[in-house]
């Protein structure tokens, strides 16, 4: 059976429909340009190809270029046997402007087009009706009313798709797409003024000169407080579970190196990293909530002018915010930035956003150095404020770096203006949002878990032998650590922190696992508060702790991010330069902090 290509304008619900039909969980959100890659999935015997959204075949952004090229390649090579064009029933004219172009391109290759008229639930909720049969006759193609959100109409759509080989391609002569779309909208479309009124009512507040900035700051503060303060009970639960399982497992093992390995390496290293999974969940959930509600597009407008001053764009805000979860999808998301110069600067700024891999490091060092004072009945905590400040520092450094680069190295690059379609406000789709959040936790464990496990075993073995538990100072690791100690001494750090920093160049979160293993060899401690106390007792000063935090805010310690930057920018030189530049800047600023704080 041949494939079916799904095409439509941005934010018309293609990916949600794709997920509903294939059972996959491709990212969906309520702003234009979420799908930046071509995705394929199986539905029965069919292969569905989800293309990034386009307005017309005149591509302006990189993701649009990918979509247009793939669409025409698939048509020309007859890889697709049918095209499923998703129309937004609340914005019929704009959808049809593309739909008619698609119909003409497909007709030339004798490929049938099926229209899925999405968001019918929104029309029903607002008592709006549409003549679907009349529209189908006018378009000379099947038009199936659906709601990708509720699932209504998907079964009839599947039935039509399964029999798509029986559809006859139509003849299509040259027309003015804009005029023809306007005619059809006039005859069959709904008056969407009622929907626009609802949208503008909320925009009066959220884009207001007075309240717009205030709500923006409040929403961002809530995001960071949720990660640090509200996730704590769940982190405690995970910590308790690890402790119970660890004690149970150790009781079955004979005393000796194997028991030491399980307690120190597995539960001391890997276990201390798992504690942070609830924070990853909260971060992804709240970012997803903002995306699905339609607020992110408003945030992009609010941020545009300030970001433009630093050579970025309002559209950079979305990948930059996603970068707080993980830099890799954020770098892909930067494809929505039309301007090549601003896109390049966005990619360079993303590694400075406080990604989830930094969370364990921040949490551990904050727990070690910052007292747990709280205000407003425990709703706001001092540790949460410091946490927010670290993220804020990353943002400030990113803006300065972009500003300097845009006015020096990349001064002559071409620029494109800011044009953004504003999506309507919508209630989030809870199930996909929960699925996405759980999926990000799973990916976090899967991606970092193996690396941490391997590094933990190496560190534990080198630290345990030749003299066994309690003799870390005379271990092989200590010999190696003292070799690199001179580099760490200016920051007030001893060889143990040197080893932890060095091992975290594979991935940042390895830092916590390595320290957990190192301190575990000295004294059993498998939870975060224990590890934080051990850091305090190790003689690390406040200045050195803050220097370490500043180092982790800036240093680019993620091999995967470097690989993606190299691939997206097609430049090994840029990726390597970025690694060394951010490393040197991180070390220099950490050294300054050590000098300033005793």
């Amino acid at each position: 059976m041949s494939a079916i290509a799904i095409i439509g304008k941005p934010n018309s619900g293609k990916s949600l429909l794709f997920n509903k039909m294939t059972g996959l969980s491709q990212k969906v959100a309520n702003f234009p340009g979420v799908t930046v890659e071509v995705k394929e999935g199986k539905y029965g015997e069919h292969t569905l190809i989800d293309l990034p959204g386009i307005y017309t075949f005149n591509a302006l952004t990189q993701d649009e270029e990918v979509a247009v090229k793939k669409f025409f390649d698939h048509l020309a090579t007859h890889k697709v046997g049918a095209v499923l064009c998703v129309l937004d029933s609340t914005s019929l004219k704009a959808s049809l402007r593309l739909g008619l172009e698609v119909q003409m391109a497909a007709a030339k290759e004798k490929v049938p087009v099926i229209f899925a008229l999405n968001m019918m639930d929104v029309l029903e909720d607002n008592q709006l009706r549409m003549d679907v049969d009349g529209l189908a006759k006018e378009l000379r193609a099947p038009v199936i009313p659906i709601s990708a959100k509720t699932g209504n109409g998907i079964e009839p759509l599947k039935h039509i798709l399964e029999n798509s080989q029986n559809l006859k391609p139509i003849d299509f002569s040259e027309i003015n797409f804009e005029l023809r779309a306007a005619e059809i909208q006039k005859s069959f479309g709904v008056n969407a003024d009622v929907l626009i009124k609802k949208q503008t009512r909320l925009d009066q507040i959220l884009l207001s000169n007075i309240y717009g900035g205030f709500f923006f700051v409040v929403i961002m503060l809530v995001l960071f407080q949720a990660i640090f303060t509200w996730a704590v009970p769940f982190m405690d639960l995970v910590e308790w579970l690890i402790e119970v399982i660890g004690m149970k497992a150790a009781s079955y093992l004979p005393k000796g190196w194997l028991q030491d390995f399980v307690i120190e390496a597995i539960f001391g290293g890997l276990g201390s990293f798992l504690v942070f999974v609830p924070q990853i969940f909260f971060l992804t959930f709240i970012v997803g909530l903002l995306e699905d509600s339609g607020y992110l597009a408003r945030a992009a407008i609010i941020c545009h002018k300030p970001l433009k001053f630093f050579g970025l764009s309002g559209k950079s805000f979305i990948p930059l915010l996603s970068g707080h979860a993980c830099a890799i999808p954020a770098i892909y998301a930067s494809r929505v930035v039309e301007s090549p110069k601003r896109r390049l600067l966005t990619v360079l700024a993303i590694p400075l956003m406080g990604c989830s891999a930094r969370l364990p490091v921040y949490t551990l060092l904050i727990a070690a150095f910052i007292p747990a004072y709280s205000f407003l009945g425990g709703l706001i905590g001092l540790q949460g404020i410091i946490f927010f400040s670290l993220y804020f520092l990353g943002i400030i450094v990113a803006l300065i770096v972009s500003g300097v680069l845009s006015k020096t190295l990349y001064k002559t690059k071409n620029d494109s203006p800011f044009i953004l379609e504003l999506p309507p406000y919508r209630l989030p789709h809870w199930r996909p949002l929960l699925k996405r959040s759980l999926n990000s936790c799973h990916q976090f464990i899967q991606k970092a878990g193996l690396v941490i496990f391997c590094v933990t075993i190496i560190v534990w073995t080198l630290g345990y032998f030749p003299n066994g538990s309690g003799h870390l100072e005379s271990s092989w690791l200590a010999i190696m650590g003292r070799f690199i100690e001179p580099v760490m001494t200016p920051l007030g750090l001893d060889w143990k922190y040197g080893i932890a920093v060095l091992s975290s160049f594979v991935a940042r979160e390895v830092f916590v696992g390595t320290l957990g293993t190192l301190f575990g060899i000295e004294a059993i401690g498998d939870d975060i508060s224990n590890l934080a106390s051990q850091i305090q007792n190790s003689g690390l000063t406040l200045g050195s702790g803050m220097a370490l935090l500043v180092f982790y805010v800036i240093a680019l310690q993620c091999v995967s991010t470097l690989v993606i930057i190299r691939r997206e920018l097609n430049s090994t030189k840029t990726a390597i330069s970025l690694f060394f530049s951010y490393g040197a800047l991180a070390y220099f600023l950490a050294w300054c902090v050590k000098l300033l704080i005793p």
Partner: protein
Amino acid sequence: MNAWNLQQNQSGKIICFNESTKAIVKRLEDLGFTQGEIISCLKYSPFNGPRVYKNSHGIFSLEEEVAKLIEVQIL
């Protein structure tokens, strides 16, 4: 008079585009900012940032440089 000069809730009819790169004008036309189209300015935004406009295709946010390309006749 261009689209940037429109007051909040004021409408105008697009007359032409001021000189600019073809790609930007083409993108604006693809989004429904065509000659004869009626557009309304729905909202100014904080920090004198991009403004929100409505046309028959939907609601769009345009920054100053773009809005100034669209010559309008106030209705």
